[in-house]
């Protein structure tokens, strides 16, 4: 079912309302499938935590509508010609949209030796994949805002259209590193090709943003730096896809920064530390999008149910496979402290 995106070029019968669809039908379906896959993955991870198959859960249910288009639009590859992603820990949907298999996240949740991102060393959601320029995610929610200008400086010097993408949450923008990122990205004559993203879920663990942030929109903080910026509805995958397309085109072409603030939901709270219970009073992007897809004749309820059933079965099977995989050995703590000359 991952091949749906490739169906874009296939001739299709014009259906009801086709001409009015904001994006290609196959793309709309592909986005839906990835959002569902990501949601089912996150819900499986939460269940693994509850069943004792992991010590801690944190993740991105509620950010799929933004994170899927982000992954789809990234220029994936290794090195300066491709996009670097300095992600935070709510971006499993971005990884899936890039083409990652969900079993990697299950392995990291279970802290197995086979965990492809950290070998059982780090929390769930702490991705790392050098082959695709995904730099290691770390738990402090500000440090990557200071690191990202470094990859962008190298890309500015290199030329081409590869860019640096850094994402964080609204709470993390209170750290000085966010100001570092804005400042280093906009030095006169040295503007950087960097897409600075804030997914704003209006919370820092238990503290409402309204009680600690004085600015109306976080995107307004770009203004004194002469950085272009926008606040968008990150619960709408179509708006997210279009706005990301536009912002990325600007950064790729102009080699200048852009600050994009996406308003999103936090559907299972901050992490397992706060229970990881479903939050019923925030917009659910999967439900909203499914209603839209049905209304616009893109997918029927039955077709969407099939997508859910497919991924529920796939991920349950993957979780069974991971259950018996070994932990890293005790001696392995001494591995990879220093890189050896190749």
């Amino acid at each position, binding site marked *: 079912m991952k091949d749906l995106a490739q169906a874009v070029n296939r001739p299709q019968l014009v259906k009801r309302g086709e001409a009015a669809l904001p994006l290609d039908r196959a793309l709309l379906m592909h986005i839906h499938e990835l959002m569902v896959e990501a949601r089912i993955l996150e819900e499986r991870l939460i269940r693994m935590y509850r069943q004792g198959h992991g010590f801690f859960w944190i993740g991105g249910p509620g950010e799929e509508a933004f994170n899927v288009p982000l992954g789809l639009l990234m220029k994936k590859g290794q090195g300066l010609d491709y996009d670097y992603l300095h992600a935070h820990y709510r971006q499993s949907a971005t990884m899936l949209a890039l083409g990652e298999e969900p079993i990697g996240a299950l392995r990291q949740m279970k802290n197995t030796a086979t965990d492809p991102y950290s070998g059982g060393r780090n929390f769930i959601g702490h991705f790392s994949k*050098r082959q695709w320029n995904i730099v290691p995610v770390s738990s402090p929610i500000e*440090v990557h805002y*200071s690191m990202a200008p*470094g990859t962008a400086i190298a890309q500015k010097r290199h030329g081409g259209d590869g860019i640096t993408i850094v994402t964080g949450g609204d709470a993390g923008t209170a750290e*000085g590193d966010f100001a570092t990122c804005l400042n280093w990205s906009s*030095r006169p004559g040295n503007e950087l090709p960097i897409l600075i993203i804030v997914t704003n879920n209006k919370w820092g663990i238990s503290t409402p943003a309204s009680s600690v942030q004085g600015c109306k929109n976080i995107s307004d903080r770009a203004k004194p730096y002469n950085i272009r910026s926008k606040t968008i509805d990150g619960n709408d995958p179509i708006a997210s896809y279009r706005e990301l397309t536009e912002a990325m085109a600007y950064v790729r072409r102009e080699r200048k920064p852009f600050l994009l603030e996406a308003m999103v939901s936090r559907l299972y709270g901050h992490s397992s530390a706060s229970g990881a219970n479903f939050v019923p009073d925030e917009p659910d992007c999967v439900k909203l999008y499914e209603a839209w897809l049905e209304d616009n004749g893109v997918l029927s309820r039955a077709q969407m149910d099939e997508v859910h059933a497919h991924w529920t079965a796939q991920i349950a099977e993957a979780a069974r496979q991971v259950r018996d995989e070994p932990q890293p050995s005790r001696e392995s703590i001494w591995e990879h402290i220093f890189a050896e000359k190749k």
Partner: protein
Amino acid sequence: MANMAQAIRLALHYAEENLGVTDVFGEDVGPPLGGVFTTTQGLKTAWNTPLDERGIVGAAIGLSLAGQRPVAEIQFCDYLFNAIDLLKLAGGVHWSSNGDWNLPMVLKTPVGSGIRGAIYHSHSFDTTATHLPGWKIVIPSTPLDAYGLMITACQEDNPVMFLEPKALLRLRGEEPIPGEPGDERKLSKMIDAPLGDRSKWKPTWPDLQPYSVPIGKGKVVREGSGVTVVSYGRTQPLCFKAAAALAEDGIDAELIDLRSLWPYDWELIKSSIEKTGRVLFVNEDTEVTNFGEHLIRRTIEELFYHLLAPPRLLAGKFVPGIGLADNLEMASVPQLPDVTEAIRALAREQP
């Protein structure tokens, strides 16, 4: 003979030309100043950053993630405490990604007392640095070692912290940098930026030769049989002077310049202590949970039955800063008389 500041500059020039160093950067590191201690004058890849230590360390991490080879400077190590979690993160990138990523970066910063730098220009960083797994840490005490260690650091695939004892940056060595002209006035004319307008100035670099000092290797600066003294950085030449003076009193000290703090040359320390049975560790960082305390712990655990006297540490006093007034600085960090007395007392200590 080049002084240490010139030696570092020469090494960085060599590294730009031959070792793929792409960026030498930090506050006032680029033209016109070339660093507050002039260690980066005239370098073709040197540039100035905003006044932002977290940004500097972060950019160094990012540049090395992107396959560049950066050398970042923090103007005084006193301002590196601001970026301590980024240092922890840099040391852990390779480990936490289970070997996927690595950071070929160098972070250089002046350390220690000796220029009447008062509370915020006199800190040491060796104790803090050695609490950061994943970093290699070096601290030269001669211009030639500074040259050789910087050249090695610029070939490393891991983060290297290059601590510059600021009291020694203007001191000249006894061994020439391979390729430097014999006349120090000639060298100065070639590579020191002129006073006044520097906009048209370009250095003339000598034909430098490759030379490297391996990380993890100390050196015996003075052989002796009565007592082992292990030091590094600013206190190293003090130990040398003290040992020379004490020889006249019949005290035969063996002096080791550790040069690398991580990894460090335990074999060299061990073989010396096995010979002398007495050891004094000397540095100027504050004495509580000091790196020298680690060395004492290891000495006791591994060499207890070789010891003729308790291992000793001479280090900085555990006070919040080094005060400006002469008396305050002298009382806070080891000076020549302190070192001399400590060696003498240990050499003569009897049960």
